[in-house]
Structure formats: C-alpha cells, structure tokens
C-alpha cells in the first residue's frame, strides 16, 4: 500500500491498518470518544463508547467501563454512525455496465420471471464492493434490473425476479436475506414490457398472483398434472406464493401518483406487503401511502419531468413523506446506485437541504431501509445485540467533504483500500522517475 500524504488521517489510517491482520471479531473492541449517532432509541450521544464482541454490539453509552482486554479504537472528535444501506441496486452483479459478460442482473429471453434469483451471481470481490464500502456502504439490496431494455439489448419482465440483502464485508456469509422480495415493474416501464399498456402490466401481475395462490393450495394436483395451465412456471409461482403468504415482499417500481394508487389497491386486494421504489409523485398520495403502511424507496434528487409519469417531480418529496408519516429510504436511483451507491449520503443531504430533519436524513440511509426490508433486528442502528456494522467518519456523514476513516462490518475492520485508492496513490507520485507501472 502506498502512503497517503495527509498527516492526521494518514496516521489514523495506518494505525488501524495494523490492526486488520489480527482477528478483531473474536475479541472485545471499544470505540471511544466519538459522537455516536445510534439511529436507535439512544439517539445521538457525545463522547460515547461502543463496545463490540464477536461481531455484535454489546453496549453503547457514556459511562461504560472498558473491559481490560479490549482492543481500543480512539475516535475522539470523530462521528460514528451505523453502516449505510443502499436500498436497491446491483452491487456485485455488475463490473462494467457495457461489458456484457460482467452483467448478471438482467436476462435475455423469458425463462424466469418472479423466480429469477440473482443472489448466486453476487461477487463479493467486485471492485464496486470495496469502492462503496470504504465510502460507508455496508449493506446492499441486490436485485434484477427493471429496465425495459438495457444498452446490451437485455430486457426485463413485469415480474423481474428476486431481491436479496447482502453485507459488503469479506466474510463468506454475505447473504443476510436471500429472496427478501419480488421485484415488479408497473407504470411506463411495466406498460412497455406488457405490450404497451400499464393496465396490461397490472393484469399480468394480478393474473400471476391468482395463479400463485391456486398453485400454493394445489401443489400436489399441479405435480400430477391435474391443474389448469398457469401464466408462470413452477419456479416463478413458488417465488410469488411466498409474497402471498407474507414471507417476502413485493417491490413495485412506479412513479406516477395514479400508478402508485393502483399498486396500493393491488396490495390491499391480495393483502401483501408492498414497497414502492421510485415514487417520484409519492408526495401527491402521501396520506394514502401512510394509511396503507406502504414504504417508499425514493429517488430524492430527480426534480425534472423526465417522463410523463414524473411530471410532478420535486425535491421536497422526502420532507413531505416524513411529515405524512410514510416510511422511506433514499437511493437506488441512477444517481446513487451501483458504482456510485456511495452518493446516497449526498442524496440524503439534498433531502435535508429541502426540509427533511437531519436525523431523518441519516435514518433514510441506515435504519429505514433495514426496516423496509424487515432486517432491523440485525442492522440499521447501533444497538445492543445488533451486528457491529458501523462507520467512523471524520465529520458529518452527509457533508460532501466527509469520508469514513474506518468501516467495520460484522466487527471486522475493513481494509480502507480499493482499486481507486490504488490508482490515486500511484498517480500522486508524479515525481517518480519510473513509469507508473513500476510505482
């Protein structure tokens, strides 16, 4: 590793790097002196300590005693937050968008729909993983893409497949929840995929639900060939029947207010747990969303009428949803997805600049996505009993100049290095007489 040149942070980084070789997770670690934003019931605590044992947070507070054998991380003057969660995307399922062999989040053809499970394609060694985690992203929802047709000629389906949640650590147990949700496309994209009409997309979805319900109650008959023809394959029906039983959620990609309302009617009719993703015009139906208890994964910076389903885009949507009591996360849009999932801090900051309270801005990229996907007992806040997935920042994490000085995932200190830091350090040494390849 090349040496960084900034005096303060460099010393800090080097000190921590030395620790990485040791199996930190098996021991007690104490992070001391920081301002800790727990995003949990304890709120924000000045000069606090976080105690970690076996990868789990065991205590947070002011007056804790440091166990004698604890490994200490001095974080005086630093800010500690839960690790950030990107609420929708394809980290680990793509390396270069325009290089087909690296793209695993979308299929050509129509072999699978609701059951298309991308989790086994996840690559924890993808450069996107390290690049985003050293920016504070510790968890990602990975999902099939909803593009009606992408630049490689692939296309999705109204029922695109299964999403999973991973942590971005090096451990092999990266899957936190496989198949947490089925992804569906409605609105303009759904209409495009359903031969031209958004109504047809809804009908495809309803027909699939009806088939899945029938299938779930008559599996034996289906296996014996004594059931009517279904609109989907066995694999897809099995995936969808878990939505009907409440074991997994249905994520619906939709923007126009009337499309959101139509989706909510469907959620009510089938009594399923729905998540809206996109939600550009969600502010127009905020009360309806609150009543239905349906959360939104919000594109918080899209303020232009980029399409006719987004005519009423605005930057205050996050603040309006918060005021109305709608649960929401920010991210997952083109601005803060995949390669640049790290930009969710900026997205949250922009929401704060447009009326969202700061604490809710931080929650929108930590606890809220964990709650939305039902993982808040494990992750999303710094609380006793939760995974020690957290970030030590030099300053307010939503500020653009801020950066993590150390990231911890599952109690392990993540190497603060990526393909990009290596490139940076190589070309910082402009005085070297040798070509870059020798640096």
């Amino acid at each position: 590793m090349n040496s960084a040149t900034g005096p303060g942070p460099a010393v800090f980084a080097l000190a921590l790097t030395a620790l990485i070789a040791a199996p930190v997770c098996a021991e007690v670690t104490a992070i001391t002196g920081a301002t800790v934003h727990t995003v949990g019931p304890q709120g924000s605590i000045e000069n606090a300590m976080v105690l970690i044992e076996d990868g789990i947070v065991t205590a947070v507070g002011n007056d804790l005693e440091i166990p004698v054998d604890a490994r200490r991380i001095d974080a005086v003057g630093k800010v500690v937050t839960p690790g950030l969660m990107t609420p929708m995307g394809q980290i680990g399922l793509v390396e270069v968008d325009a290089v087909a062999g690296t793209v695993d989040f979308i299929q050509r053809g129509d072999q699978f729909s609701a059951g298309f499970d991308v989790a086994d394609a996840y690559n924890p060694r993808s450069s996107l993983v390290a690049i985003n985690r050293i920016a504070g992203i510790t968890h990602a929802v990975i999902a099939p893409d909803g593009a009606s047709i992408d630049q490689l000629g692939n296309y999705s389906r109204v029922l695109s497949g299964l999403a999973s949640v991973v942590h971005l650590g090096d451990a092999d147990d990266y899957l936190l929840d496989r198949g947490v949700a089925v992804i569906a496309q409605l609105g303009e994209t759904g209409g495009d995929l359903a031969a031209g009409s958004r109504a047809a997309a809804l009908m495809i979805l309803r027909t699939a639900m009806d088939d899945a319900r029938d299938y779930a109650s008559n599996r034996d008959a289906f296996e014996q060939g004594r059931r009517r023809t279904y609109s989907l394959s066995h694999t897809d029906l099995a995936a969808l029947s878990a939505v009907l039983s409440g074991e997994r959620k249905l994520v619906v990609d939709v923007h126009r207010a009337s499309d959101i309302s139509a989706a909510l009617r469907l959620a009510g009719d089938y009594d399923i747990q729905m998540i809206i993703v996109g939600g550009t015009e969600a502010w127009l139906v905020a009360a309806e969303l609150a009543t239905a208890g349906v959360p939104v994964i919000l594109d918080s910076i899209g303020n232009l009428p980029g399409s006719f389903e987004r005519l009423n885009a605005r930057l205050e949507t996050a603040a309006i949803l918060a005021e109305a009591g709608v649960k929401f996360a920010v991210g997952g849009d083109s601005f803060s997805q995949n390669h640049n999932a790290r930009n969710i801090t900026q997205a949250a900051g922009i929401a704060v600049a447009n009326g969202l309270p700061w604490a809710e801005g931080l929650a929108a990229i930590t606890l809220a996505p964990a709650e939305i996907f039902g993982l808040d007992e494990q992750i999303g806040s710094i609380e006793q009993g939760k995974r020690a997935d957290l970030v030590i920042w030099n300053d307010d994490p939503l500020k653009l100049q801020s950066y993590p000085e150390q990231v911890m995932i599952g109690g392990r200190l993540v190497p603060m290095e990526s393909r990009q830091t290596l490139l940076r350090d190589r070309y910082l040494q402009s005085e070297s007489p040798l070509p870059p390849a020798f640096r």
Partner: protein
Amino acid sequence: MKPVLFLVVTCLAVAGCQHDESADRSSETSSESAFSSRYAALPNETTLLRNATVLTGTGEQLEAADVLMQDGKIAAVGNNLSHEGALVVDASGHWVTPGIIDLHSHLGVYPSPSVEAHADGNEMTAANTAEVWAEHSVWPQDPGFVAALAGGVTSLQILPGSANLFGGRSVTVKNVPGRTVQDMKFPGAPHGLKMACGENPKRVYGFGKGVAPFTRMGNVAGYRKAWIAAADYRTRSEKALNGDGDAPLRDLQLETLVGVLDGEILVHNHCYRADEMAIMLDIAEEFGYRIASFHHAVEAYKIPDLLADSGTCAAVWADWWGFKMEAYDGIVENAALVDKAGACAIVHSDDDLGIQRLNQETAKIIGAAARAGMNITPGHAIRWITSNPAKALGIGDLVGTLETGKMADVTVWAGDPFSVYTKVSRVYIDGALVYDRDDPARNPVTDFTLGSLAQQGGAQ
C-alpha cells in the same frame, strides 16, 4: 453580434492565433452571421450586494466584501463600497461567486421529458457530421434550463452527442428563458466543434452499422482524412479569392472544420482514456489546430503534464465511473491531480441533474483531495466551474470572474457553496435578477411546466 467583440474573444482563446489574418477570414466565413444572437439583457438596476463572502473566480476569497453591479457589468468588488442610488442587498452570511458555467450540457437537445420526439442531440447517421449545429435542435422550453438556473448556472455550452468522430457545432448560451435559441445565444461566444474518441464511434458505426470506424485506429484514420479534406478546401477557397480557380461549392461540413483550422471554432473533444488524449493532441499538432478541452477526461490524471504543456483543459465528473470500459479507471481526485500539475481543470455535468449542483460535485473532489493530502481552497476550486470553463469556451474575457468590467453574471448562495445544505439564493445575468429563491412568483416557468402541481409558482 458585434464583430469587434468576436475577434477579441477568439484571439484570446486561441494561443498564437494570428490576429490580422484570422480577422480577415472570420469576416469571410459565410456561416458566421447565420442564426446570430438576438440575446438582449433583461432590465437591470444598479445593485450593491453587501457584506458577503466573495469568491472572485480569480482564486481569491474576500470576507465582508461588497459587489457592485452597474449597467450589467461588475463595477467594483471590495470592502465598504457604496454607490448612490444603488439597490442595496444585504448579503450577510451569504457567499457570492461568478455565475456557474457548465462546459458540457445537452439541455434543449435532450430535454425533459426525454421522449423520442425530443431526442435531437446525436446525428447518428455518419461518423462525420461536422455540418450539424446543436443550436438547430435546442428546445428553449426544456424545464432543465430553469432548474439549472436554480443551481446558479448562468452560461452553458450545449453540445451534440458523442456517437460521431465529428458530432457537429456546439452553441454557448446564456441561461435566460427565451422563445428561441437565438434569444439565448451568448453574444460573441465562438462556436465549438464536438469531437469524440473511443468506444462510442466504434460501437455505433463499426459494431452497429458495419461501417468505419470499427476500431480506435479507424477513429484516428477518420479524423485525419477529414482534416486533410478541410485543409484542401481551405486552400481552394483561398486561391479562388485570389482569382486562382473557381471557389468550391460551399460545404457545411468542411466549413466547420476550416473554422477550427482558422482558430475561430474551438474543439471540445469527448475523450476518456489518457492514451487516446495523447493521440488527439498529436493529431491537433499534425494539422495545426488546438484542442480547447477534453470532456469526460476520466483518465486526465494520468497525463496532467501533457495537458499542461498543450494548454488543453480537462473537463471531468466528480465520480462517474464503470459504466463502460473506458470509464473503468475513474477516480474522484482526477480534477485535483490535473490542477496540481498546473493544468486547467473543469467540472462539467453532461447531465440535467448534475448541472443543478456543479458546486456539490466540486465539493466531493475537494473532500477526496484533502484526504489524499491536497488542500484546495474554496477560492481556488470555484474556478473549476467558473473561470476555467469560461476560458475553454473562449469567453474568459467576458465572464467567469468578478473582475471589474466583466458581465455581471453572479450567483448568490445562502452559505458556503460547497456545502450540501446550501442553496442558491439569487442569480443575476448581465446585472438583471433572473432568479430569487425568496420570491418564487417572479421566477421563470417554462411553457411545459406551466400549471404543473409541483411547479408551485417557480423554479425548484
């Protein structure tokens, strides 16, 4: 357009341009007077912005400073200014900067809503379309213009897309609402020529259509063939003027290329990879023109010395990377490393959302650079989105700093412009208040967004 002004701008922008000769040619270029600017400054009043933190665009940061705008120009910048009869605006706690300039935009040619009927930015029918002009595609009702105004943008270059080796002429506009593109055209700004390296021409023609270019070496052959044709066209035209032979039939494509060879049209070259930028600099030297700027110069940090030597600016994003192979080596510190080597760094948008927050994109680079031990002051960084793009556009003598006598294109921020929490308070263009966040009723609304539920009486 005032011809005198035009010449001053052109010659300042092009190093070593031969004043008298290019003056003569310029008056003879038949395209020069076509579609000329009808921009007229909006009504202004003498205004004194008082007690602000001022980033001058020349590298300085002034505290408790005042900015006086009179007759559409910067009349004075300093402490304790006064001017009888001036409208005094208390800017305490605010920051004042030159208006933001985006070197790379497709507003108007790829407007919102982005429907097929509006996709007018990329003439993907031949690898050389130097004959098309972006201004003939600009839809002035693009809501993106008003949104960019709310982000402090006072001027922008609108470029054709990057499918072609030669994409066509760009146009520089003032970000004022107009009924026509002529109402917006920056008076005196030279045209640009959009060129493109790398994957896009290869993909669109070789892979997509089975015609040249199919490879990067095919790209280079395409550029060189075109410059040879342009030089020949210029020679024949000049000979005809001297009574030696017939003038060639007017050729719009070659006319644009000759404009480059004559130093009247500035080359803006989409080029990601370091090795390709080096090739393009050599082609420019071979045919005797200059490249004003490389756009999307993702690997500029690998060749800052070459950029400094050639005086070519590198326009970059803060953090875009990985969407294609030639963007794989993108790093956030790119602009900082270019700047550190003494080359001209610019942060551009290429995006209708990014243009609204070029200040924030710059802030991300400041943060990453600090972490790598490079301290970049706000006074210095603001140049990446003001005076440096002005220079690359050949309008550096008119805008881009708050120096006395320049156009009063000024952005007032509610606080530090490099904070994510700061929004633009006011925007002045030629001394006229064109945007005021505190007075939504006066702000411009495009025809397209008129009456939308989100519009609420002004820009957002």
